Every structure is written in structure tokens, then in C-alpha cells.
């Protein structure tokens, strides 16, 4: 969270935006601050609709659209809204975006709409969707906010696909509906049921934490390796 707290372009001062910095707003959500694996936000849809990869992708894209739209609109009006009523304003903007998505998904595919069920309207109360306008869009320019929303949404989608893959492959023996294992595969139904959601998310979190710790240790080792010869020369 330390990155976006820096007051970038807060009062409309002409800050020269380097392309690298703009890209950072996008890639930040994808990996470094992945909403699910790092920030542990938006748990309800993460656990509830990841029992198939198709649902996970649909949910991820719907959420991406909502975050990007809400971020953009909030950033547009960020100087007009008084501080006291900002949360209420954000929620109204988000609810409008979600209503649009609700009808959009219904129009595109009624099967997906039925599979996601109440979880499309429930995007409104996804903590991630409220957190981004509050933490990022209310302090940054429109372009950056939309990019940030897009990146966060993609990170969210990525996490949902990770979970959905594990649950669908183990629980049903299929991936996007295609059979992965032979006909003798006995599906591990537990992974399609609620406990499977908790277990697979816990496993993904463990994997992620272990990987991050390992790479941090390796980075530290490399840095000490680089500084050691320099110190020898100096002495």
C-alpha cells in the first residue's frame, strides 16, 4: 500500500508522467499487489464461483469492468465530492456500474448468468471494488486510475483462474469442459464443494507466500554477494 500513498498529481499540478510509471499502475495489481494472493480482498466471489474455469473467467471480467469504470468515474469527480460523503458516492457509482454489468451478462450469455447467480449483483459489496476508488482513484488522474482498475481486475481474474483450474481439474477432471484425465479418473468431488474452495485457496496462499519468501531471500543473497567484494576492495 505504500506505493500509491505517494501524492502523485494530487492537486492537478502538472506531473510529467513517464510511461514506466503509468505501466506500474497497471502491473502493480497484476503481481506485486495481487488483490487475492497479497491483499486478501474480495474473498466471497473468489471462493464461491471458482468451481469451474469458465465461471472464474466470466466473474473476473465482470469485476474488471466494474473496477475500471468505477475508478475512472471516481477519479473524474474526485475534486467535487466532499470528504464526508465520498464512501456513499463511491458505492452509488459502483452500484450503477454493477447494474450495467448485470444486464450485460444476461444479454451475452444466459447460461453464465444463471451459473453466477446472485454473485453478479454482489460485486457491489466486494471489498476490492470499494478499496480501489478509495485508495487509488480518489488521489490519481483518470488515465492512471482506469489503468490501475484494469490491472487490479486482471490480477483478480488471474487469481480466480488459478483457483478455478485446481478445483475444476481435481473436482471434475475437466478443464474448460474438456476432459484432462482418462475415463478411469474418479472425480474428487470435495473440491467442487465449499470445503474444497477453502482448501485450494489456502494452498495457493501457502505457495505464493513460500515463493515470495524464497525470492526475497535470493535477492538478499545476491545483494550481499555484490557488496562483499566491494567491501574487500575498500578494506
Amino acid at each position: 500500500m505504500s506505493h500509491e500513498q505517494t501524492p502523485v498529481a494530487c492537486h492537478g499540478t502538472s506531473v510529467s508522467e513517464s510511461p514506466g510509471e503509468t505501466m506500474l499502475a497497471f502491473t502493480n495489481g497484476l503481481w506485486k499487489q495481487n488483490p487475492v494472493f497479497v491483499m486478501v480482498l474480495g474473498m466471497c466471489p473468489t471462493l464461491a464461483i471458482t468451481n469451474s474455469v469458465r465461471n472464474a473467467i466470466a466473474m473476473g471480467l465482470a469485476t474488471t469492468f466494474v473496477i475500471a469504470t468505477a475508478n475512472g468515474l471516481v477519479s473524474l469527480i474526485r475534486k467535487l465530492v466532499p470528504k464526508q460523503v465520498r464512501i456513499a458516492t463511491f458505492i452509488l457509482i459502483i452500484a450503477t456500474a454493477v447494474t450495467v454489468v448485470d444486464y450485460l451478462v444476461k444479454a451475452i450469455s444466459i447460461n453464465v448468468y444463471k451459473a453466477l447467480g446472485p454473485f453478479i449483483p454482489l460485486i457491489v459489496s466486494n471489498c476490492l471494488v470499494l478499496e480501489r476508488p478509495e485508495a487509488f482513484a480518489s488521489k490519481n488522474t483518470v488515465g492512471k486510475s482506469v489503468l490501475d482498475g484494469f490491472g487490479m481486475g486482471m490480477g483478480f481474474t488471474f487469481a480466480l483462474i488459478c483457483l478455478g483450474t485446481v478445483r475444476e481439474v481435481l473436482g471434475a477432471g475437466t478443464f474448460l469442459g474438456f476432459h484432462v484425465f482418462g475415463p478411469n479418473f474418479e472425480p474428487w468431488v470435495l473440491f467442487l464443494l465449499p470445503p474444497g474452495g477453502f482448501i485450494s485457496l489456502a494452498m495457493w496462499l501457502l505457495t505464493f507466500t513460500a515463493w515470495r519468501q524464497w525470492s526475497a531471500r535470493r535477492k538478499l543473497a545476491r545483494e550481499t554477494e555484490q557488496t562483499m567484494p566491494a567491501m574487500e576492495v575498500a578494506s
Partner: protein
Amino acid sequence: MNDSLGHIFVDALLINNFVLCVFLGMCSFLGVSGKFSTAWRMGLSVMFVITVSSVLSFGTNVLLVRFHAEYLRLITYIVIIAATVQLTEMFIRKTSPALFRTMGIYLPLITTNCAVLAVPLFQTSRNYSFVQSFVFAIAASGGYTVAMMILSLLRERVELSDVPELARGTALTLLLAAILSMAFMGFAGMGNGG
């Protein structure tokens, strides 16, 4: 589909427990369940907000249907919930400042609790009558409170044991929730008999 009041109650409380079987209210379930004393307070305030907003949104839905403005449903529901949370906050601050101090920071969080929004949405989509939706709201929020209390007690126990450093925090809570959820799966059989 059995729509008797008793069936709705048991179904929302145990068989389709909001937290452990339908995955609603996850954020607060994982975030505020560290201590038993805060967990049951959070549960009770969520119960209050859910019941009030369920009654209010039932009335609003009747109006919306009469004026053919169903597309406004989601927006009105979220406004009702936000207003209820705000009112609860003001009410508790006036009547019991001590309770307000202990519960103060959790109250605004209730607005973004998906369990609160889900109750009005479910009661609308299932066409519950007024009494049915009232019972449904109490049972669903009761199920949330029960799950919160059980998990917080488990977490207080596990805090004393020696867990690998890697697994501490959210991953451990999720594994505990998984075991709890497996236990609640046992209730699924109750639905077929009744």
C-alpha cells in the same frame, strides 16, 4: 421446494449456512474473527442490520414493482443498507457510548459485507412473503453469527499452538474454515428428509 417457515429457518441457519456453504461475508469472517469478544459483537450488529434492512427493502421492492422500476433494485438496496448502518451507528452512540467504543470500527464495515446485501437479493429472487423474509433474515444472520463465534473460538485455541511460520495468518484461518465447512456439510442431509 418446501417453503414452510421452519424449513426456511433451518435451511438458512445450518444447511445453507451463509458463511460456510454459500461463501458470503467472507471478508469480515476472515478479518474480525480473531477474538471471541469482538466476533460475537460483530455478529450481533450484523444480525440487527440484516433484519432491519431486510424489512425495509421488502417494502421498497413492493414500491419498485408497482412503478415498474426493478432496474433500480440494486441501487436502492445498497442505499437502504448504508442508511441502516449509519442509523445503527448513531443509535448506539446515543444510547450506549461504551458499546459504541468497542464496536465503533466494525460498524462501517458492515456496509460492504456481502451477507447483508445478499439477504434482500435472495428474498426478492425467491419471492418470499413478508413473514418468510423476516424469518429468513433472522436465520441467515444467525447462521453468520454462529459461524463467526465457532471460528473465533477455534482461532483462539490455535493461537497457542506451534504452527509453521509459513502457514500463520490467513492460510491457517482458511484451513480451519475448511474443516468447519466440512462439518457443516453434514447438515446437508437434513434438507432431503424434511
